[in-house]
């Protein structure tokens, strides 16, 4: 369980997050939507301290996350997938996947390699294990980025627009993998502009505007019966597109 209490984040004078409270229960699949620049990425990145919050706290399974204290532990438990995949360009696919578990001594190299190959097989990319990221398509890279996070055995996975940088025909392979992971009970927080995916996939949806949570509820509540005018406006705009 991840608890976020009165989370605030300023960039200089600019207030980006203005006090967010949220509890993420195990098994939740939370979709975060909202207009561009409202602070979705900043919020997501605050959860694993890629952005250090100005105030407020993040509590993981009862432990308050402290910048200096158990950061590595926190980050091991929270996997993250980025819009731009962010594979390490200087390493092969296999090395990308096993780097962190081996260096963090979660597994020895043989076990990690075995596990990586098992995961690669699952996504049909075993034959690419010795390729470099630049030799792969966007969809392939993103799926590898996902299993790179998965091999750390995280409790929660964060996705920041995982399909935005993909060609339309590749979106399916990535969302399919996400669904499979969800099936195994993974807790997920997803920022996305793919409204149909969010609606269909998430158990709860959160609408953020101007650094605040404006509305939260089931996909049905948010997409079919939005209460707040800002949500309505946003959804009508998105539908227009």
């Amino acid at each position, binding site marked *: 369980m991840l608890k976020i209490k009165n989370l605030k984040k300023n960039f200089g004078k600019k207030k980006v997050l203005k006090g967010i409270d949220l509890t993420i229960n195990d098994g939740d699949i939370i979709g975060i939507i909202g207009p561009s620049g409202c602070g979705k990425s900043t919020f997501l990145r605050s959860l694993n301290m890629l952005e250090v919050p100005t105030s407020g706290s993040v509590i993981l399974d009862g432990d308050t996350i402290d910048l200096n204290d158990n950061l590595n532990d926190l980050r091991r438990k929270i996997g993250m997938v980025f819009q731009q995949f962010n594979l390490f360009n*200087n390493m092969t696919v296999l090395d990308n996947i096993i780097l962190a578990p081996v260096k963090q001594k979660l597994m020895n190299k043989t076990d990690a390699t075995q596990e990586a190959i098992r995961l690669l097989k699952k996504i049909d990319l075993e034959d690419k294990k010795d390729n470099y990221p630049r030799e792969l398509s966007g969809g392939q890279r993103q799926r590898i980025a996902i299993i790179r996070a998965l091999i750390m055995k995280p409790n929660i996975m964060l996705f920041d627009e995982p399909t935005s940088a993909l060609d339309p025909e590749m979106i399916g392979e990535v969302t399919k993998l996400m669904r499979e992971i969800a099936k195994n009970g993974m807790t997920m927080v997803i920022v996305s502009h793919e409204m149909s995916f969010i609606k269909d996939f998430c158990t709860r949806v959160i609408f953020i505007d101007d650094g605040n949570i404006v509305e939260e509820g089931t996909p049905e509540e948010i997409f079919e019966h939005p209460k707040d005018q800002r949500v309505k406006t946003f959804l009508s705009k998105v539908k227009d597109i």
Partner: protein
Amino acid sequence: MKRIFKLLVIMLSIFLLSGCETETKDKLTMVTEAGFYPYEYYSNGEVVGVDRDIVKRIAEYLDLELEIKDVHFDSIISEVKSGKSDIGAAGISYTEERALEVDFTDNYIVSNQVIIVRNDSLINNIDEVSGKIAVQLGTTADSYLSENYPNIELIRENKFLACIEDLRQSKVDAVVMDEVPAKNIMDNTMRILEEPLFSDSYGMIVAKDNTTLLNAANAVINKMKESGEIDAILLKHLESKEETKEEVKESNNIFVKIYNRFYRSVILDGRYKFIITGFKNTLLIALGAVILGILLGTILALIRNFHDNTNKLKILNKLAKLYIDIIRGTPSTLQLMIIYYIIFGSSEVNMILVGIMAFGINSSAYVAEIIRSGLQSVDKGQIEAGYALSLNYRQVMTYIVFPQAIKNILPSLGNEFITLVKETSIGAYIGIVELTKASDIIASRTYDYFFPLILIAIIYLIITFILSQLVALMEKRLKNA
């Protein structure tokens, strides 16, 4: 990579150790600028001359072994003052200013400062001296003319050879310099005015508190003066010059002329040895400096990068930035002097090591910025992905940032090395015999400035050309890696 690093460290330690080696026999160190025939000049790779012969006698008198150091004339007083050298003998004239800094021995030579003009000149005596006059910078002629002839335009050259060249090319109307070298280097298009402008006498200099050496030097000098030995020595050196002069036959054939210049500058008297030594030292200093620069620069870059990424180490970062700003904001010549005279002070130290230290420290500031911008060029997203996977700063740097940054950094470091090869030329200031100093030494014997300069320019070009090719090759390889 690790192997190369190990090798570099070993090489550096060898330099350091070779600088520390201790010698058993006590020495008398004479400092001079060996480009002042017949008082001090190079023959067969060694500094010889009237001054050396006299100081040699002083050393024998004190039962010490003579060691000679060849530096820039401007540096001689600081050498003696700081205790790096015991005695300065370089045709130094007594001035009150100098006497404030060091003690002078009795005069051992009285020399005339004469006026040289072209044959067609209208200047025929002292009172007619006007227009542009060339002198060697920092000599007594320089100060004398500055004080007594406010209306002339003084052209101050680093070498008196350059003065004569100016006169030959009609860039100046007259040259004022010591009579003895004057007679040797003028040609038949010039004449020396009969009446000297003023007379000058030379003494040697020792540190203020060194009375033992002062007394010994005076005793030897006075004895030699009385017995006429000094005049004999002077004559001997002047005659030895006459001999070498005759070896080269003049000719009108252009190729023979070029060959003669080549022969005089390179082959005669084994002068190629200076070029070889200079070449070796230039490369050695540049290589040592670039290694030291990389070691220091990496530390600086890491401090700055760590601060940029984590906002920690604020004070250390400020210091690193200050260091980089100071180094990049002051002339490297100055840094070299400061390291040699102030940091190393009176300690005896291998000159090559001083060069490596000075240029290495200088280079570290540039290397730090090269490395820092190389590190910054690595995609931020990958760094974040590393952190998100629970890696720490060190791991992210080691496994993700460095391997990618090195592709940008290595070629720039190669270029830094090329820059350093050329930078080392200022090592001549403190007497390091690198390529430029080698050409200086040769020119001071042949009175032919251009040939050795062109020659070493070609050598610099070849070195930098080869290095540039290597850097280009490395760049290509890394791009494909």
